[in-house]
C-alpha cells in the first residue's frame, strides 16, 4: 500500500481540500493498487478505470469550486459489490447467467453515494448471487484473503472486504442476507455494518432473499464507515420495504463514542453465542473484548436468546424459498445468457442449467421444494412462525436487560480455500452468529478485536435495536480506539507479507 491508499477517509478529505493531492491522483493511486494486486486477490470482476478517472476529474472541479462545501465523499474511491446494479457498468452477480448485462439504471444506494461525490472504482467479486460464506462459489473464481492468500476472505461480499482490507479502496458497499457483510469484515480485519432491514433502500440490489437482504458499508475504521452509511441511509419510494425513520447525524454517534465512551450503556452478552466447537482463539478474543467494553464504562449483562439454535434451519428454509422465487426471472428472455432449444420450456431449463452454478441450483431446488404444493405449511409457514420467536427473543432482551448486544461474528477465523467446499451444510453453519440478526431485521456490525496464533483477524459483533445504528457506531468507535488491534499497522504488515 502506498501512502494515499492507506489514508483514512477523513485524511483523504482534508488532503483533497488542502490541495495536497487531487481526486485524480487519489483515484489513480487506488486504480494502480488494484492493478498491482487484483491478479492475486481476484477481488474485482470489473475495474471501471475510465469512468472512475472522468468522475475524479469532475470531483476535482467540484472541489475547486465549492471547497469545504463540496459533498462529503467528493473524490473518494468506493468499490461496489457486483450484486448492485450500476448504470452503464456490467453487473454479473458473479454468475454466468448475467454475464454481459449492462443495467439501464442505478441502484439507489449507489446513486446516493455518487451524488455525494463518491467515485466507483469497480465491481467486486462475490459468491454467485451472494449465496455462500467463502467467496468460493463465484463463477469468476475465488477471492483470496489479503492476510493469507491460501485462505478465503469470507463471503458473500468477499471481494468488497478484501478490497478495503488490501487498500484497493477505502470504502466499499456490500450486501448482507445472513452475514455476508459482517463475516467477511471479520475475516479480513475491517469494519462492516449490516443496517436495520429497511434502513437502506434495496432498489437496485439484485433480489436474493427479499425479507433478509440489506445493503451496507465496509471501511477500515468506524469513523470512515459512518460517512458512507450517512450517504446511503433513508427511505426510498422505490423500495416499499424501506422504512421512513429519521436518519440521525452519524457523526454525533462517533463524537459520543469519543467523548462518553460507553458510560451508562448496558451491553448484553448472550450465552447462546458461545458454543462448543467454536475456535478457542475467537472465544478468547471476544471475551477479552468484553473486558475492554467494561473499562470503557459499559455494564455487562448476561442475556438469553433461547431460540438461537433454530436460526440456521429457519434461515435455510426462508432464504432458499425466497431465492427460488426471485431467481425465476433468469429465463433467457430479457437479459443475460440464452441456450438454444426448440421449445420455450427447453430453452428455460437449458439456459438455467448452463448459467447457474452448483450452490445456486441447490438453493433453487430446496426453495422450490419447500414452497411446492402440500409443503408450504410444514416449511415456509413454520419457519415464519419460528422467525417470530427469534424476533421476540431480541425484543425481550432489549426491553428488559440491555441497550446493545455484543457477540462473536464468525465461529472461526479465515479457513483454507477448499476446506469446506465439499459440504454445503458445513458451510451453512458459518452463519450461526450472523443469520439470527437478519431474521430479526436488526442492525449488526463487525469490528476487528484481535487475531489468532496465525495472525488472522477476529471480529466482535455489536447488535442493536431496530434503527439504532447510532449506538453501534458509538460502541464500535469507542472500542476501536481503545483496542490494541491496530488495523492500519496490520494493514501495512499484510501488504508487505503478501508481497506483490
Amino acid at each position, binding site marked *: 500500500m502506498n501512502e494515499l491508499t492507506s489514508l483514512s477517509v477523513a485524511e483523504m478529505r482534508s488532503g483533497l481540500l488542502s490541495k495536497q493531492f487531487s481526486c485524480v491522483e487519489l483515484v489513480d493511486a487506488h486504480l494502480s493498487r488494484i492493478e498491482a494486486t487484483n491478479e492475486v486477490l481476484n477481488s474485482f470482476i470489473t475495474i471501471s478505470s475510465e469512468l472512475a478517472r472522468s468522475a475524479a476529474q469532475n470531483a476535482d472541479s467540484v472541489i475547486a469550486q465549492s471547497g469545504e462545501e463540496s459533498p462529503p465523499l467528493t473524490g473518494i474511491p468506493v468499490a461496489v459489490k457486483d450484486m448492485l446494479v450500476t448504470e452503464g457498468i456490467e453487473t454479473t452477480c458473479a454468475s454466468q447467467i448475467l454475464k454481459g448485462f449492462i443495467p439501464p439504471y442505478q441502484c439507489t444506494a449507489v446513486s446516493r453515494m455518487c451524488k455525494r461525490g463518491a467515485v466507483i472504482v469497480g465491481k467486486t467479486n462475490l459468491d454467485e448471487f451472494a449465496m455462500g460464506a467463502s467467496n468460493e462459489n463465484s463463477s469468476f473464481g475465488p477471492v483470496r484473503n489479503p492476510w493469507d492468500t491460501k485462505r478465503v476472505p469470507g463471503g458473500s461480499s468477499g471481494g468488497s472486504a478484501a478490497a478495503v482490507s488490501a487498500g484497493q479502496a477505502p470504502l466499499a458497499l456490500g450486501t448482507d442476507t445472513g452475514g455476508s457483510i459482517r463475516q467477511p469484515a471479520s475475516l479480513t480485519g475491517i469494519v462492516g455494518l449490516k443496517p436495520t432491514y429497511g434502513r437502506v433502500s434495496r432498489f437496485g440490489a439484485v433480489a436474493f432473499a427479499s*425479507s433478509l437482504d440489506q445493503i451496507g458499508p465496509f471501511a477500515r475504521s468506524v469513523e470512515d464507515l459512518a460517512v458512507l452509511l450517512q450517504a446511503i441511509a433513508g427511505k426510498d419510494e422505490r423500495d416499499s420495504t424501506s422504512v421512513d425513520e429519521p436518519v440521525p447525524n452519524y457523526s454525533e454517534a462517533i463524537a459520543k463514542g469519543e467523548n462518553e465512551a460507553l458510560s451508562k450503556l448496558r451491553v448484553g452478552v448472550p450465552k447462546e453465542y458461545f458454543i462448543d466447537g467454536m475456535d478457542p482463539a475467537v472465544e478468547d478474543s471476544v471475551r477479552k473484548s468484553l473486558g475492554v467494553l467494561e473499562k470503557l464504562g459499559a455494564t455487562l449483562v448476561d442475556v438469553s436468546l433461547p431460540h438461537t439454535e433454530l436460526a440456521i434451519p429457519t434461515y435455510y*428454509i426462508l432464504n432458499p424459498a425466497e431465492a427460488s422465487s426471485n431467481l425465476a426471472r433468469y429465463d433467457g428472455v430479457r437479459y443475460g445468457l440464452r441456450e438454444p432449444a426448440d421449445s420455450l420450456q427447453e430453452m428455460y*431449463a437449458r439456459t438455467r*442449467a448452463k448459467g447457474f452454478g452448483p450452490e445456486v441450483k441447490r438453493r433453487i*431446488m430446496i426453495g422450490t421444494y419447500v414452497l411446492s404444493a402440500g409443503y408450504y405449511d410444514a416449511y415456509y409457514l413454520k419457519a415464519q412462525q419460528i422467525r417470530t420467536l427469534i424476533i421476540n427473543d431480541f425484543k425481550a432482551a432489549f426491553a428488559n436487560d440491555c441497550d446493545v448486544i455484543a457477540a462473536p461474528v464468525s465461529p472461526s477465523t479465515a479457513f483454507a480455500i477448499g476446506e469446506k467446499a465439499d459440504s454445503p451444510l458445513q458451510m451453512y453453519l458459518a452463519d450461526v452468529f450472523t443469520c439470527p440478526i437478519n431474521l430479526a431485521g436488526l442492525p449488526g456490525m463487525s469490528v476487528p478485536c484481535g487475531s489468532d496464533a496465525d495472525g488472522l483477524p477476529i471480529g466482535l459483533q455489536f447488535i442493536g435495536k431496530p434503527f439504532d445504528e447510532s449506538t453501534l457506531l458509538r460502541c464500535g468507535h469507542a472500542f476501536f480506539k481503545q483496542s490494541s488491534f491496530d488495523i492500519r499497522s496490520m494493514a501495512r504488515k499484510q501488504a508487505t507479507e503478501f508481497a506483490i
Partner: protein
Amino acid sequence: MALSKEDIEHIAKLAALELSPDEFNAAFQELNDILNYIDQLQAVDTRGVVATSHVHGVVNAFRDDVIRPSFSKEQVTKNAPSIDERGFRVPKVI
C-alpha cells in the same frame, strides 16, 4: 420427509432446471442431508404463533397511481438475447 429420486425429478421440472446425471445424484444426497437438518423445526411447538412477513410490521405501501416516465423500448431490450421490432423473441411456445 426423505426425498425420492422421483421427487428430485419433479422439483427440477418445477424449477425449470435441467440437471446432468452427476448433478442429479449430488442433489439427491445433498437435498436429503439439508432437509434432514431443517426437519428439526417440526419438533417446535408453534401453535398460536403469528408468522412474520415484514420484520417491522410494514403491511401495505400505497402510492398514487401517477403516470411517470419509463425506459424506452431500446433501453429495455438492449440486453436481450433476441428481439424483433415488436419485442422479445422466444422459441416456439406451442
